[in-house]
Each structure stands twice: as C-alpha cells, then as structure tokens.
C-alpha cells in the first residue's frame, strides 16, 4: 500500500486515503479533433513498466488532485507535484533520470 505526499495539504497519505485517476498530462481532444487523436486521448495509455506519471486525488483528505512520478516496478516515488502543470518539475525529472538514464518522459 503506497504512501504519497499530498503537495496541497502536506500530508503523507496512505493509499486508502487516495483515489487513483490514471495517466497524467493527457491532452484533451474536443470537437474538431481527428478520430485518431480522440482515440489516443480516450483509450491509448502507455502503461509502462517503469516510470509512470499519474493522477491521484486526496479523496479522504483535502480533496485536491495532485500528480505523482512513481516507478511501477519498484514503487519508488520520485516525487509528487501540483496538478496544475503540463510536465513534472525539473527536480523530479532529475531524480527520474538519475535512476533511468535517457528517460524522456511518457509522451
């Protein structure tokens, strides 16, 4: 059972306090988008064996969404960060690349 630090309220929250929200940093495709782009947005997930950037909601806490960079194999957590971003902050990227040289992100 994971423990993730909620960057909004500052609590180290156990997984039972959290609700998962799937892959982070998806680009929304609305009207006018191609079928292929829509399919990617709705259904195509990287689901990598390794570094995942993912959404969590502190559902039984402050109620806020945040993002986490986690290794899906080792459960190492490289950091959590605000949901109001388009990419992980540099310090988290540095921690990831220290462990996974050449990592270029999920997309």
């Amino acid at each position: 059972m994971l423990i993730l630090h909620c960057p909004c309220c500052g609590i180290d929250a156990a997984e039972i306090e959290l609700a998962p929200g799937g892959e982070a940093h998806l680009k929304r495709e609305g009207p006018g988008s191609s079928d292929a782009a829509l399919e990617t947005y709705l259904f195509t997930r990287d689901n990598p064996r390794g570094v995942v950037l993912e959404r969590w909601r502190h559902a039984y806490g402050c109620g806020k969404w945040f993002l986490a960079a986690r290794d899906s194999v080792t459960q190492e957590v490289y950091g959590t960060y605000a949901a109001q971003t388009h990419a992980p902050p540099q310090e988290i990227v540095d921690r990831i690349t220290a462990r996974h040289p050449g990592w270029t992100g999920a997309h």
Partner: protein
Amino acid sequence: MSTRLATGGRFTDRGKQIGFTFNGRRFTGFQGDTLASALLAGDQLLVGRSFKYHRPRGIVASGAEEPNALVGLGQGARFEPDQRATTTELFDGLVAESQNHWPSLAFDVGEINAKLARFLPAGFYYKTFLWPRAFWKHLYEPVIRRSAGLGKAPHPEVRDADRYEHFHVHTEVLVVGGGIAGLQAARNAARAGAQVLLIEETAHWGGRTPVDGGRIDGREPEAWVAETVAELEAMDNVRLRLRCMGAGVYDHGYVLGYERLTDHKPGAPGPRHRLWRIRARQVVTATGAIERPLSFAGNDVPGVMLASAMRDYVVNYGVAPGDRTVVVTNNDDAYRTAILLKKSGLDVPAILDARPMGGGALMQEARDLGIRVEPARGISKVLGGARVTGVAICDQAGGGSMLEEIACDAVAMSGGWSPVVHLWSHCGGKLTWDADGAFFRPDPSRAPTGADGKPFLIAAGSANGHLGLQEALACADGAGKAAVEALGRGFEESPVPRAETTEEAPLLPVWLMPQGARADLRMKAFLDYQNDVKVSDIQLAAREGYESVEHAKRYTTLGMATDQGKLSNINGLAILSDALGAPIPQTGTTTFRPPYTPISFGAIAGEARDAVFQPLRRTPMQDWHEASNAAWEIVGQWRRPYCYPRPGESRRAAVNREITATRESLGLLDASTLGKILVKGPDAGRFLDMMYTNMMSTLPVGKCRYGLMCNENGFLMDDGVVVRLSEDSWLCHTTSGGADHVHAHMEDWLQCEWWDWKVYTANLTEQYAQIAVVGPNARKLLEKLGGMDVSKEALPFMTWAEGTLADTPARVYRISFSGELSYEIAVPANRGRAFWGKLLDAGAEWNITPYGTEALHVMRAEKGFIMIGDESDGTVIPQDLGLHWAISKKKEDFLGKRAQQRPDMARGDRWQLVGLETLDGSVLPDGAYAIAPGKNANGQRNTQGRVTSTYYSPTLGKGIAMGLVIHGPDRMGEVISFTAEAQDETRDELTTVEAKIVSPVFFDPKGEKQDV
C-alpha cells in the same frame, strides 16, 4: 507406538491435565500441549484422509508447515474448518474432528480412489469431464463439488460468536520472528534507540535453537533467550507480541500482522484475532527455515515425520512419536534426532544416510551411541497402511531393489532445509539458488525497495540461508545494525554472540529416493501431501508440456491449498527441473503470495460488521421513516423508504396505495438524498456548459432546467435539475447515488483541466432537507401552510422561489418527477423533521400519503422519465434515449460531445428507448432480452433489445415497461418476443412473452397534469 515419555516437555505442565475430544473420543493432554502433541501422546497417528485418494494421513510436522493434520475445530458459532493441529494450543473442552472422511476416519469409502490412483493422474479433471456438455450440470459438477474442498464451511446461518479488531501501528523497525535471530536483531535495533516491534507466530520465544542445542555465549540457548527477552521487555521503545504472525509484506513498508489472542482460551474477554496494520520503516524477517521431506514410496504413511518435528515433540512436549524410529537423511542435522531419541531411551534401529560417505562428527557421535549407520542407503518403500510397520531399505544409487526390511513404527526424514523466504518475496524481493544448501535464499542485492528506492527489508538468520548457529547469529546481528543504519541512527559496536555447536558435513541434494526409483515407487512418493501430488504427477505434467513451473503447479495442484506448498515446493520444483533437464534456478519458483498461513475472515473484517459495516447516512426525517415501519431500499450509503406498508399490508399493495393516493390527491416524498452541488463564480456558467450537454449559462435566474451529464466517452453519467440561484451561482441536483461522484467529477475538471477558471463548488447535499409535495392537492396544502405565493402565475412550472413556508425558511422548486403538480421544497436540514411533521398535519384533510422509492419509480416510468442506472448503464448515450432535445446544438463543446460524433454513436442500428406493453397485461421480467431470428457466431440466439425498467402500473391497471430496441422508435405497434422465466427450471427450453412497442410515455402524454 506413539506415547508420552516419563519426563520432559519444555512447554508442558504435567500438573495440569486437559480433557478434549477428537472425533468424539475423549483424550487428555497437558497444559502447554498442542492438539498435535496431545494426539500423538494418545497414540492417535491417523488424523485425516488425504484430499484426492483418501489415504490415511498422520502428523508430519510440528508447526505452521503441517499439511495433513487439519481439523474442524469447535462447534456451532465457533466452528472453524482446516485448523492445523500443530499450531492449535490445547485447551479444556476442545472439540476437534478430522476431515475428508466418510463414513468414518478409520473406514473410508473414498479410499477406493487410492486403488484407482493410476486412473486419476495429473490434470484428471481437465481430461475426463469435457464431454458431453450436458453431463456437467447434472453429473460431473455435483460429484466434484461434493468431493472437492478441504473441510466443510461453517453453516451459513450461524454467526461468528467472536469479536475481531484492527490495530494501526507505525514503527521504525519491525522484526518478524522471535527465534534467536529475531531476538538478536531486535536487541541491536532497540539498544540503538529505535522503536521496535517484535512479533512471533508461536506462543514461545526462541524458535528451534533450544531444541537443536548448542551454546550461546557459554550458556544454554534457553537461558540466552530468556535473558534477551527480559532485556527487550524492560525497554520502553520495544513492543513484543507472541502468537502474532507476520502475514504479508506490501508496498512502502506496509506489513500485516495476525495476532491470535484467545484461540487458546475461547470465549475469554476481548477480541479473538487482531489484524495489525503496520507501517514499518525497516523490516527484519527472521522467519527461520522449514525442513523438507524426502520423496520415497510411502512417505505419507502415518508415522513418517520430519526429523526436526520429532525432536520438537520429544523436547517440547515429552512425546515420542515412535518406539523404534528409522532415521533417513541426506544431511547431518537429522542425526540430532537419532541421538536425542537414543538418549531418551528409545530405539533407533538404523540411520539411512543417502550420502555415499555418510556424515561428519554427528555421525560419529551416533555410532558411538551404538546406532547402526548405513551410508549410501535409502528407503525403497515404507511398509504398513494405517501406520508404519517397517521400511524396506535399498541403495540410494539404484532403482529400489530391497536389500533388507527393518521393523519400526516411525520414520524420521530430512531432505535438508528451505529458508522461509515468503515475506521477503511478497513485495518483490528476489531469490538466488544456493547450490551448497540446495535451497533458494534471499538475494540481498535485489531486496524489496520502498518509496525512496532503498531496501526496506532485511532477511536474518536461517531465513537468510544461514543455517548454522554462529552464522545465523552473526547474520542477525548485522541485520539489526543495518536496520538502524538505514534509519540514520548510530549504534555502539558490540560483539556478535559466540556460539558453540557441532561442525556439520555438507548435505547431498536428494530429490528422489532411490535415485532411479521404479515407476511403482514413484507413484507412491508424495511431494504434496495436502493435494496428493506425487513424483509421477510432476513428471507426467512435464511430459505433457507444462514446462513453466506456474503451469505445472496449476495442472497438478502442487503447492496449492492451505499450506501453499511449504513442504513440497522445492522438492516438486527439483523433480520438474530434472524432468525438463534444466537447472533448478532456471526453472524458478512459483510466486509467494500473502498471507503466510491462512488468516481468519473475521480478522480481515475487523470491526466492520453489522451496524458499523459501513457509514449509514440518515436524512433529517429518518426517525419518522423508522417509526412508520418503512421497508428499506439501499441507495449508496443511504437507506431510503421503499414503501410504508401498513399492518397486514403487502409491499406490493402499499406501493399501489401510495401511487394511487398521490395521483388522486396528495403524496409526500423525502427527497433529501438528492445530490445538491453549488457551483459559483464568474466562470460558473461557462463551466456548467461544459459539464452538461445542454446550455446552462443562459438559464435565467429563478428558472430550473433538466440537464444531462456525460463523461468524455460520450456516455450518460448523471442527470438532474439545475437551478439558477443568482447571477453567479447555480445549484445542480444530482441522482441520490451520484452526488459524491459528480462533485468529484466537477472538481477533477476544475483542478486538472480548467484550473484558471474562477469557479467554486460545494457539495451541499446534507445541508438541506428536501421534500416533494406531489399531487392535485399539492398547491392547496402549501397555501394552507401559508407564507409564499405558490400560484401558477407566481410560481410557474420549472421555476423556483425563496421564502417562508409555515414559518420555515424554504426554497420551493416547481419541478416534477411524477407528472403531477409538484413542489420540491428545500429547508435547512435541522428544520426538516419539523417541516415534514407540519406537512403531514396540514395535509391530513387530503389524505396526505408519504410514498417511497418504488412509487417514485413507477410514477416516473408511467411518465417515460429515464432513471440513471436503469435506462443508462455506462454504454448508453442520451441520443439512445430520445433525449436529443437536451443536447445543445449551439455549444461548441461539452464533455462527451466529440465522442458522440464517433461513427459507432451515429450508426442507425443502436438500441433506442421505447415503451413496451405486454399483450396479456403481465409485467415483463426485468432485464429480459428481446429475441431475434437466427443465431450468432457462438450459436447463441440473436437479440434485438432488452427491458430496462418494468413495473405494474396501478394507474393503468397493467404492466408497463421501457426498453432499448433496435430501430425502436420506428417500430411503433410492432410485437416482439422477450425471454421469460421458465415454468420448469429443469427443462432447457425457452419461454417467451409477447410485447408491443409503444411510446414510453404511458400517462398524460401532453403533460397537462404537471403544468397547472
């Protein structure tokens, strides 16, 4: 025979006799006995029948690894199946019965399976019961169900008499296992000032060492253990728990402990079991090692036992499992058993040592005691059926030709030891093959890692493959210090305790005895006692292509069931490797999964039963509903009145009465559970235009609008009436079950997508009591209460007003979910109960009738209003339900708009909403499918629609239904067939009922009743 010795027994108190029964027969044991030791003391060798062949089985082990001695324990509300006799502490009045036998343990009909063993090979069920198909239901399945499964489940109507609880604990260091390794590791961590929790699954500290002997720091191991425990108990930063097993290790240092508090004194005050939910920064697993059986023919005959277990019974309980014991081994450790037995005055006719040159110093000691030692020999087969009468010995190198028969009544076997690596493996720790010891051990370079990417688990002592006393102590000493270092604490250098023990000669891996055993011997050489898996079964699985160890496991059932292969895994794996011609490490192990041994469902549930199973949400009027004999419907965490039956009235009759009273005069509904979400801010209108399919930004203040909410996949998610409260605020009503979900959905989009939009949401669901006043006399009632103008002119349909009704601040919404003149009135929650009472009092002259959810459902169905969860199921788009009018064509975007443009959403043959009327007026079965001509590719009948809502309408005096039917709206008047309940369930034929496709609006199609 198996008997109690005149003296001895570390754990037993011979001054305290304890009476118990086994299969109805009375026995006595001593305080401190286990059920297993007491049965052995009473010469009860036969304790159960095996699962598949119903072979007689006896006690093999002395601890958690026991595969055979499973009993049904207790009676009535305290009955529990599959309890291990070896870990059941004896108490006065204990009642146990053996399992898998019929009609009796001594004479069992199922034993015929053993005679048929050659016809019941690996994968037998898969191979035999394929055809014909119809035989499954009536022949194969009933027979398999009767004979499958271990033990019998408690009676479903009997409630567990005991209480259970959860403990949430944080600790810096958790040490699992209270043997010498666990104690040494805990002591080092504790001395450095770390918070330490030390748990031990048995009732005793010290593990095996006091039985196996040697000296630690010049003292008897028992004295060293007592001293160490005393030191730990005196420290404030240490907690110790006996009878507490480390059940599982999970991500980020989460560990489950399973404490059995009153199993040894049933009915004592307090909880029976306690589940420890532990967060540990560092975990030390000092879980010991388990001795392996040897695979020879008849190794399952009662009287054949692990050599170490035999020592345990002699030393710990003063019980000798036999008078004449042959010891068979591939290592030096088993000589300790022979030496102990001899010194206890018992006969040891021979030690059969499979190693060509025998053993080392311990062999010499045995010989000096006059014991016959036979190197390079093994057992060809065990003689005897219900108990051992002798062994046929042979050359280990041969095919099993008998050299000599030796009479004996017990066999002590040792095939070496396997570290208990379960906890290490649960959370991803990897193993490495130790060729010298012939076992898998933890690979410290691939330990389970935590959130920081660093190892959080350290294996110590024999659990880490260090079987020798000195090596185990040194390993544990280092583990305790490493845990402290990982916490960032310093520690004072201290010497490793010094052990004195006899040097041992190397072990020789022996996976089959004799090495070239003939087929008839291999068919009697059991690997997995609990699942009756033999050497020949694994070899057959390999021949049939089950090369992966995980496949071979499932095909043969090796390592399944309650013991999860604690004795059998390595032996089975070695046989498989040999059959495949691949080395053992390459073949690999099956996955170790929690729990280490079965834990009770009670412990998992903890306090979560009955009233506290889950939170119960109560509306302000709940006490009135309870006092009014409401029948309940569960809606999320709410309990809503389904109807209010009067004395002697059926539910059906109550629902019909409530509907008729409402349609004819006046009804009252507690609608407080309806979700109420306030959406406020400069961008609130823009936001709601995205949330709903229709336009909400243009809704004038004072007006209400029905809205649909879709997810990004285009599917209908929720619906409800949206109210414009003011220029910058809207109140969104949601379904009763959907409020939290919808609120979370809104927050998701606000926080994660449009975070620059100025919008605030608040879930106000529980802040208001909401009451629907419904029926032709609804207006008269509100006028009688007084305080607000509720006339058609002042408060037209789909508007709202704020004011005071009967001296109660109220918001009145003119909305209708029944098709009647209807007002939904929201008052502050704390005024709700009083307001409900005022309505009832004032409404008496119109026969005001509270109605429940079923009347609500029937009335909405009579009007053709959809219900989320009935007409929608996560695959239905609003267009399927004829709700095009609620989907804005002007808006550029809303959630789901793009997805609804996909070809599959626009194709013409989607199932669409219609009304359905049976030709005979009956009520269609819920969920029934409309059948179509022909069959699909799988030979199943084609379908063309299904029933989504179906009721008896008292208003119309017949059954009414809604359903989704292909091209439905274009097929008005057509009659189609629906599947119906068969009259005779045993006959496999289709019963149908005919229904006509009609408009879904059955009642008042022009809406004249609601808009008055």
